[in-house]
């Protein structure tokens, strides 16, 4: 047995609670196409904690766009595809509260629309093994300190699906509280929706924009350099408004902050 030299950085001392654990990554369609860096950050975090990450290529999307528009029948192919991609995994992780909520809450409901008892049982089983990143880190792996380093002023927007449907509570804040060098400033009216709402933003564009404008105003009041959230869909909305306003505030996914270390 060799002696591990005194650590120069916290990441070296990080425990490997995920050692021997195989995790399926559900990247979600929006991250796949628009935010690959978020997925890369998740892979980095999970591997750093000892997990073996697999990316089943059969995966597509949680189907929220069609489900939330009321097109349940059109969503069933996405549910079937999700089951095809992820059955067999004990743990699946997604960097999105919204898509995690869609799989866990909506897939069982959609499966019942088919009336196929075998399929219902399969969906009830597979859908419940998905975790949003903060849930997996805290509830499954039992870690809060990821040895992350992010020397910036940051404010956190608790996106609605994570906050209310997954009941993440203070989990994201606990993870962020261990990030070195970071100043976390509270966001006024944080509980209010940013107005994205999936197809809501195109079905009700004026209302959605009014909500996003208020969210952006509250973010600017904090003088933060970054707004962080657990959902890139919300961040795309908020970041789009902040960019249009030339505010200089950047939107960043929680995973990207947690993946960042002093070595980076």
């Amino acid at each position, binding site marked *: 047995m060799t002696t591990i030299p005194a650590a120069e950085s916290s990441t070296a001392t990080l425990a490997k609670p995920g050692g021997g654990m195989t995790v399926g990554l559900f*990247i979600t*369609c929006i*991250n*796949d*196409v*628009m*935010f*690959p*860096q978020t*997925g*890369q950050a998740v892979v980095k975090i999970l591997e750093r904690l000892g997990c073996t990450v697999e*990316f089943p*290529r*059969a*995966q*597509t999307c949680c*189907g929220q*766009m*069609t*489900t*939330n*528009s*009321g*097109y*349940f029948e*059109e*969503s*069933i*192919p*996405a549910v079937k*595809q999700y089951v095809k*991609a992820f059955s067999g995994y004990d743990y699946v992780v997604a960097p999105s509260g919204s898509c995690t909520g869609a799989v866990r809450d*909506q897939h069982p409901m959609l499966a019942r629309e088919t009336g196929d008892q075998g399929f219902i049982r399969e969906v009830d089983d597979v859908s419940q093994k998905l975790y949003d990143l903060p849930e997996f880190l805290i509830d499954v792996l039992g870690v809060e300190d990821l040895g992350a380093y992010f020397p910036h002023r940051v404010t956190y927007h608790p996106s*609605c*699906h994570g906050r*209310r449907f997954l009941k993440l509570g203070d989990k994201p804040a606990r993870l962020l509280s261990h990030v070195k060098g970071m100043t976390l400033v509270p966001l006024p009216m944080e*509980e*209010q*929706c940013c*107005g*994205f*709402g999936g197809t*809501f*933003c*195109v*079905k*009700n*564009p*004026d*209302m959605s*924009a*009014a*909500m*996003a*404008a208020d969210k952006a105003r509250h973010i600017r009041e904090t003088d933060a350099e970054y707004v962080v959230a657990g959902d890139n869909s919300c961040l795309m*909305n908020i*970041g*789009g408004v902040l*960019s*249009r306003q030339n505010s200089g505030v950047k939107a960043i996914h929680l995973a990207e902050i947690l993946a960042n270390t002093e070595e980076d």
Partner: protein
Amino acid sequence: MGTELRRITEGNHGVARLTPAPDNGGTFLGMPKFQKAVKTELELSVQRKNMRNATTTIRNKRALRVSESPDWEDVREAAAEIKNRVARHLDHYLEEAEKSLTARGVHVHWARDGQEANQIVAEIAKAKGVDEVVKIKSITTQETDLNEYLEEQGIAAWETDLAELIVQLGHDRPSHIVVPAIHRNRAEVREIFLREMKNYGRPAPEDVSENPPELANAARLHLREKFLRAKVAVSGGNFVLADTGSLVIVESEGNGRMCLTLPDTLISMVGIEKILPSIDDLEVFLKLLPRSATGERMNPYNSVWSGVTEGDGPQEQHVIFMDNGRTNVLADPVGREVLRCIRCASCINTCPVYERAGGHAYGSVYPGPIGISLTPQLRGVDDPVDRAMPYACSLCGACNEVCPVKIPLTDIILHLRHRVAQAEKADRFGEDAEGTVERNLMKTAGWVLGDAKHFEAVQAATRSAGWALKGKPLGPIPVPIAERWLKYRDVQAPPTQTFRAWWKKNQKEGK
């Protein structure tokens, strides 16, 4: 008998009327659907500010009072169970309530729809020979548009709740189910009182300021003569207690007590879902409703009365049990959960969409989360306004958390979106360009998401856009759908490599 009412033309679009004419005939018929209506509302900066202040105040008050309550979650659970029992066995409770009310000297009437309920009210009023009635705030009678029906029948219906008075005198429509004038500020109220009170009764004091206590006093003076004079009152009802044959009204100002106590005849129009099994159940609902509705530990006045009491209050009483679509709601095992609603408006107060839209844009007397979950079930989804309603929601879920009877509002909203989508598919009614584009898009989405190969093929297209637009944020461009996003926001160009492409490369290069 009958009072000498004047007919007023001023402010009433040239029509001589007994009561102020609401704009748009007071109904929501023919108004644009939410998406379009909301555009106008969003531009009303005074209303936006009034609404933001008011909803913030009420949200905070509610949160404080709920935090004081040691057994809040247990009370919510009990309320949900009690109301479920009533809905699931409604025939039993309706018959029991009818029997108890009749035994207490109440005339019980049944109305299949709003028109029938309105006719019953008018017939009773005419039989009493009156040309006016005083009213307690009642959303049920707004649902049936009773005031306009009575006006047509030559009977003036005087609203006596302060907010309803502001709305009525302001030729306006209610925008909230608990505080219907939430969209008005004190300066607007003063102006309305000064301009209108003199036409319909005792004028507002000339020197009335915009201080709320002075405005409330002007209302007290204006209405007192109506209370003392009225022979017939019309109310709704918060609860009907089946075992004792009692009605319950929860209020603040005392205008309800005036209407329930001073006139000779009382007509109460209640939805068939308003029943509670027993007087014992009152404890649960009186713990929940005031804290949820106005953020008070208890509202100033609750009245409970069980039919006719000799020597006290109206000696002739009528209760109208109204369906008006409620049995349609009951028939839907998912949708029927909204029948638990006790009209506290806490979902409305917490809704970010309502806060910005106000109550007028929805096209229903029931706005906000409860409105969009209830109205399309009551009225069906044939009309574009009703079809738009379930989409006036970002599915943020704030409403689910505050509902005192635990209605899963976003689940029901989603369920109703499904009904709308089914209806749109089934008929050729939603033939506007947007509907067609949407249906095709959804069909395509099903195809794309049902197969990873299709999915990757579509990704290739966005990747080429990424190459073409490398690093540049997109500004406003006139592309359908994208236009709606880009009108208000930038979007970054898609990256040149998808995650799955990176993964493939990463894995090949071997770690």
